[in-house]
């Protein structure tokens, strides 16, 4: 099956050689139609997190608790819509890890935070000194660990010996996330920044020798995003059987944001793909692929819509395990379609090791 498809793509790409001509256009559409608005939205939601921390720490009321919850959810959601843009600005200054330290199956962030609390380390209380600490303790991953308990309840602002310390630390993280998100958005908004590197591919461009290479960087990051969603965000929670499911392993499950997170990353990838209007670079014989891909993304949404947050409490009930299993099958189909069929129809090269091994 796979072999036949492979030959099919080779033939398709050879039959439609003119398509490489204007790959700048889909890249520009991705930047203006998806990347800039999505990073701006993330900057906007992250900018509100410090105020939500201050509010709940000043007074814990139903409103401030809800305010903190929704502000964190929105920040996580909007981060999830951009985390797969693993090129250019998101890689500067280790931004990705400093925003969200995932995966962390062995609990590195938790371990480092325990040490920080044991030493009552004051350096986490201000933005400047926090930024010199390990990336794991600067991130939303760390924020979730100190602001929520295992049962997904907000504990930030609760009375106790560590209240002020945790509030100070949470505020520093919130400011850090807001600052990085703001810088990410402004870097992408800068017409002379990485956008220009992507859009000026050619012999003079040290990074991208052709628009095809530039489109590969953008497109392959979306394929990697699907692999991350499936292999890193969903599969570890499923374990080897329903009895061995580990709902805590879903990303941001502690704050009850897992479904939001996975939905947002898939929507983001789908929106990014859609922004490029790739159909017009495919031969008429191949254009069906984009319709089928859209259909598969819709299916993914349907599976996710049937899950109930917080997964730490609901996962395993009412067939949710099978919904998640079905989602994995569906994501595998999306991965194959994007990595093989769409890439093949566009004449793009995929997997680094698979491509030209040795």
């Amino acid at each position: 099956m796979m072999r036949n498809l492979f030959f099919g793509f080779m033939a398709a790409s050879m039959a439609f050689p003119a398509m490489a001509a204007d790959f700048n256009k889909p890249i520009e559409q991705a930047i203006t139609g998806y990347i800039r608005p999505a990073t701006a939205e993330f900057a906007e939601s992250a900018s509100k997190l410090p105020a939500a921390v201050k509010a709940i720490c000043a007074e814990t009321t139903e409103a401030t608790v809800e305010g903190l919850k929704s502000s964190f959810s929105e920040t996580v959601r909007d981060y999830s819509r951009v985390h797969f843009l693993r090129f250019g600005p998101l890689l500067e200054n280790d931004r990705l890890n400093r925003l969200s330290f995932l995966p962390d199956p062995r609990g590195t962030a938790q371990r480092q935070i325990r040490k920080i609390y044991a030493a009552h380390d004051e350096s986490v209380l201000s933005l400047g000194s926090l930024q010199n600490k390990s990336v794991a303790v600067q991130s939303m991953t760390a924020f979730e660990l100190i602001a929520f308990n295992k049962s997904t309840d907000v504990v930030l602002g609760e009375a106790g010996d560590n209240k002020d310390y945790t509030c100070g630390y949470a505020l520093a993280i919130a400011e850090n996330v807001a600052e990085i998100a703001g810088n990410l958005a402004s870097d992408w908004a800068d017409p002379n920044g990485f956008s220009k590197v992507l859009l000026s591919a050619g012999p003079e461009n040290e990074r991208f020798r052709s628009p095809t290479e530039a489109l590969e960087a953008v497109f392959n990051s979306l394929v990697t995003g699907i692999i991350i969603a499936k292999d890193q965000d969903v599969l570890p929670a499923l374990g080897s059987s329903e009895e061995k499911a580990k709902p805590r392993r879903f990303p941001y499950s502690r704050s009850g944001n897992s479904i939001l997170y996975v939905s947002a990353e898939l929507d983001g990838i789908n929106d990014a793909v859609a922004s490029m209007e790739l159909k017009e670079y495919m031969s008429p014989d191949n254009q069906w692929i984009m319709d089928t891909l859209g259909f598969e993304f819709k299916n993914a949404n349907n599976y996710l819509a049937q899950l109930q947050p917080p997964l730490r409490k609901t996962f395993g009930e009412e067939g949710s395990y099978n919904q998640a299993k079905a989602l994995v099958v569906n994501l595998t189909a999306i991965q194959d379609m994007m990595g093989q069929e769409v890439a093949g129809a566009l004449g793009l090269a995929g997997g680094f090791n698979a491509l030209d091994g040795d």
Partner: protein
Amino acid sequence: MSARQIAAQSLSRRSFLSALGGLAAIPVFSRSTLAASLIDRSAADNVPLFVSAFKSANGGFGIGILDDLGQVLARISLPGRGHGIAVSPHKDRFVAFARRPGTFAIVVRPFMSAEPEVITSDHGRHFYGHGCFSADGRLLYAVENDFAAARGVVGVFDVSGPETTKLGEIDTHGIGPHEVRLSLDGRTLIVANGGIETHPDKTREKLNLDTMTPSVVYLDAENGELQSKHELDRSLHQLSLRHMTLDANGRAWVGGQFEGSLSETPPLVAVFSRDELPKLLEIPGSVASQLQNYIGSVAANATGDVIATSAPRGGQTLFWEVASGAFLGTQMIADGCGVAPIDQGSFLISDGNGGLSFVGDAEEPAEILARPPGFSWDNHMAAFG
């Protein structure tokens, strides 16, 4: 500018630190960034380390040193794409080779305050990307292409002094030697001759697919004498024998890449020993049909009783029981290729999407330990320290 100059420049301490600033300003464990050496040995004591070549998202190439949680502790930039890593028996240094037809290799002593040393292949030679140390760590054996004569050689280097010198060459009795391993007793070099003729003027073009004759040879490490040579049946002459590891019994497990029709599914894994006929292993049909006849890396676990063979084109890694030769199962890891032993019996697998996955049991799902952003891990990973 020669490769030597470029590499020396990019490997300076200052540029190393500034490169860090661009990609990993404050790693999870910040100990490595400010120490004079790449890795602080006392801090890294008892921490298993791993080394792999990578391509970075900004288009550059390098070598990354990772801990057992998949965090990048240090990185060294390279002037071109790297490939295999030879680790010294004392685990105090490693040599990273350029990918064929590259002409550089670097000797790295990560625990010492020392610049990496650049070795350049002789005129008329290029490296094939793999090598190994002698048992006492004084010599480095590197597979090379004598491309004018279309013959493979093992370059023998003295790495015992402050500066590496080439002592001589050993004929590999074949074309395209790829991976070389030292026998468990330290006396024999085992070389997988891939069989494919290439010439640097024709970059990576394969020149002799109709006549290629891969082999596995056993060479006396002292005098270069051919002890034995194994070829597969003529019907498998297009199965390029390339990557290799030794099991606990010293037998060589070799992974092949088939250059014939993709409609065939020949065996891809074979076991060799000096005085016995090669044994071909069977991959179950449903798996075999997905692999595109391509094995990328072969590694044994620490106890040498399980072998992993990665198949990046099939997005999976296959596991084998040494004692019986039985196929144990596969793990799906997209673009997974580098494999190294971790813990007592497990494997760490690196992939082109930056992921580092822990596989303790072929039946259980792989555990993705980390995915350092901006790294595409290249074909091979070695356990170090």
